[in-house]
């Protein structure tokens, strides 16, 4: 039996039935991480000793009669989540020496549920990137083709799940950072509604867009994990105080009567072979009883320029905390306070992070604030209003996750605009705070392609139902990269 290809539900059965212990399961994944982890560069930190201790504790809890969907099952956290006593680098030299004194709410909730943390995954520096190439720790490799990128920013989490190095992984999505790597690595990736999952202890990039989510092999597995992660947290000032439905229990609802919106703007610029797979995916949903209608969001094509004002503006403000004084990198022998700030930040941040900080500084500076920042927030409102109107006539919007499959490492590093356009189909959901999921829907040249579903605020359950229904009649989500099967 290959433990790393089992679903969460299957593993839980094995654990409940005493067929395998959490300690054995954890050793299985630690062995895989040691053997194939380094070639993928998916992890920044391996926490083998803590994982073994957590596994023993989980086995004791289960022996004492405790049940739980995640109890004793191994995961990997994106290195953007603060983990008490464990290095939390956010993919940056700036935090290479940072050991978090506390746990993020996402981490403490999963810990309480008995999840086993195997390690912290590699990522684009401060989550700024779409290819995992901006990481201080080097690029992650795509398990389907080691010469290609896994996507980003949560590239390590996506690659780890795809390669069977953990059962599921956490990620964050500010402009597509869960859905885009999920599509490029052939796994299921879910970004909940803004405010659904606590941002406490999740290192901030753009606070009005950042949202935590999950990578797993199926919508059914995502539902189990999201049920534990989601919920109100008074330590996050934009956390939503609303009950969390039982996502797993609602999965099986039929799709008959579901109205799917086909967004005209989602098909512009899409590679023809990707478009054919997305179309085939939509046909599967139709066969399940869904009806389709075409909708248009005329301002949606402006989502990328809107994002590249709003996100850098928020980033330049959030990252001003890294000053070389209280934590993080400090330059050697500063001659005065200004030198301390400028050199610590100049040395600690990488090329892309500095570019975003400067873009943000520029659009917020005196004389430009109205023309750029205020204007972008107005266009963001227009885009959000168009989504709201669309959801008056459709239940979900369906389209591609990315314009192309995974591209070669190095192919786009010299051209920021081309890199930014990778997120053309994903950014809209972030600007409007909407939940969205990417599910595998086929292959182009042996590389996975993702189908994206976007829903209205708090329609997590509906999206998971639709994705689960799709995965009941397709097997794309069961395909594994041949080298890691």
């Amino acid at each position, binding site marked *: 039996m290959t433990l790393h290809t089992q679903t969460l539900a299957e593993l839980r059965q094995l654990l409940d039935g005493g067929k395998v212990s959490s300690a054995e399961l954890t050793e299985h994944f630690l062995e895989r991480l040691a053997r194939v982890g380094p070639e993928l560069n998916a992890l920044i930190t391996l926490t083998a000793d803590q994982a073994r201790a957590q596994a023993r504790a989980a086995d004791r809890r289960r022996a004492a009669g405790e049940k739980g969907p995640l109890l004793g099952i191994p995961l990997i956290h994106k290195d953007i989540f603060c983990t008490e006593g464990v290095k939390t680098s956010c993919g940056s030299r700036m935090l290479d*020496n940072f*050991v978090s*004194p506390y746990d993020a709410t996402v981490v403490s909730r999963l810990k309480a549920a008995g999840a086993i943390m195997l390690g912290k995954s590699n990522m684009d520096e401060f989550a700024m990137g779409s290819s995992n190439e901006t990481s201080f720790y080097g690029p992650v490799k795509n398990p389907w083709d080691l010469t290609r990128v896994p996507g980003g920013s949560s590239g390590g989490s996506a690659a780890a799940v795809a390669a069977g190095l953990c059962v599921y992984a956490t990620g964050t999505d500010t402009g597509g950072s869960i859905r885009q790597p999920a599509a490029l690595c052939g796994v299921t990736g879910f970004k909940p*509604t*803004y*405010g659904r999952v606590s941002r406490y202890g999740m290192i901030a990039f753009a606070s*009005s*867009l950042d949202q935590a989510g999950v990578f797993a092999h199926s919508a059914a597995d995502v539902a189990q994990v999201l049920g534990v992660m989601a919920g109100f947290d*008074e330590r996050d*000032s*934009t956390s*939503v105080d609303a009950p969390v439905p039982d996502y797993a229990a609602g999965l099986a609802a039929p799709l008959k009567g579901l109205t799917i919106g086909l967004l005209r703007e989602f098909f512009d610029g899409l590679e023809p072979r990707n478009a054919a797979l997305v179309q085939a995916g939509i046909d599967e949903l139709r066969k399940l009883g869904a009806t389709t209608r075409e909708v248009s969001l005329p*301002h949606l094509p*402006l989502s990328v*320029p*809107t994002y*590249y*004002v709003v996100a850098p503006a928020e980033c330049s403000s959030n990252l001003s905390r890294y*000053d*070389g*004084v*209280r*934590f993080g990198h400090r330059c050697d022998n*500063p001659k*005065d*306070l*200004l*030198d*301390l*700030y*400028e*050199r610590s*930040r100049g*040395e600690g941040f990488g*090329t892309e992070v*500095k*570019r975003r*900080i*400067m*873009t943000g*500084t*520029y*659009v917020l*500076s005196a004389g430009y604030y109205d*023309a*750029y920042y205020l*204007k*972008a*927030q*107005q*266009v*963001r*409102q*227009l885009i*959000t209003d168009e989504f709201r109107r669309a959801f008056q006539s459709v239940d979900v919007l369906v389209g591609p996750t990315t314009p192309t499959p995974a591209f070669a490492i190095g192919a786009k590093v010299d051209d920021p*605009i081309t890199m930014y356009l990778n997120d053309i189909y994903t950014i809209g959901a972030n*600007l*409007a*705070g909407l939940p969205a999921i990417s599910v595998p829907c086929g292959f182009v040249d042996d590389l996975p392609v993702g189908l994206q579903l976007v829903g209205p*605020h708090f329609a997590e359950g509906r999206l998971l139902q639709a994705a689960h229904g799709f995965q009941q009649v397709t097997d794309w989500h069961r395909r594994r990269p041949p080298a890691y099967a």
Partner: protein
Amino acid sequence: MSLTRQDLDKIAHLARLQITAAESERYVSSLSSIVDFVAELGKVDTQGVAPMAHPLVGQVQRLREDAITETDQHERYQRNAPQVQAALYVVPRVIE
């Protein structure tokens, strides 16, 4: 619109980032193209549109009681500090 080397140096200073001369050249070019790219927003008619303040309709920032909820954990937090003396963060001399 193109940024100049002087613009870039001013932005870098405002952001408290030391940028080398070679980096500066590259950033002038890439920041100019980003500024041109986002300038497209200027063409949109946004007359009467309120700038978006929150992604969720009707949501406002919560307030809480003005009560002390944090305990003193400075030793724990200062373990990550580059230089601490007598529980104070040490920086280069500011006042002569």
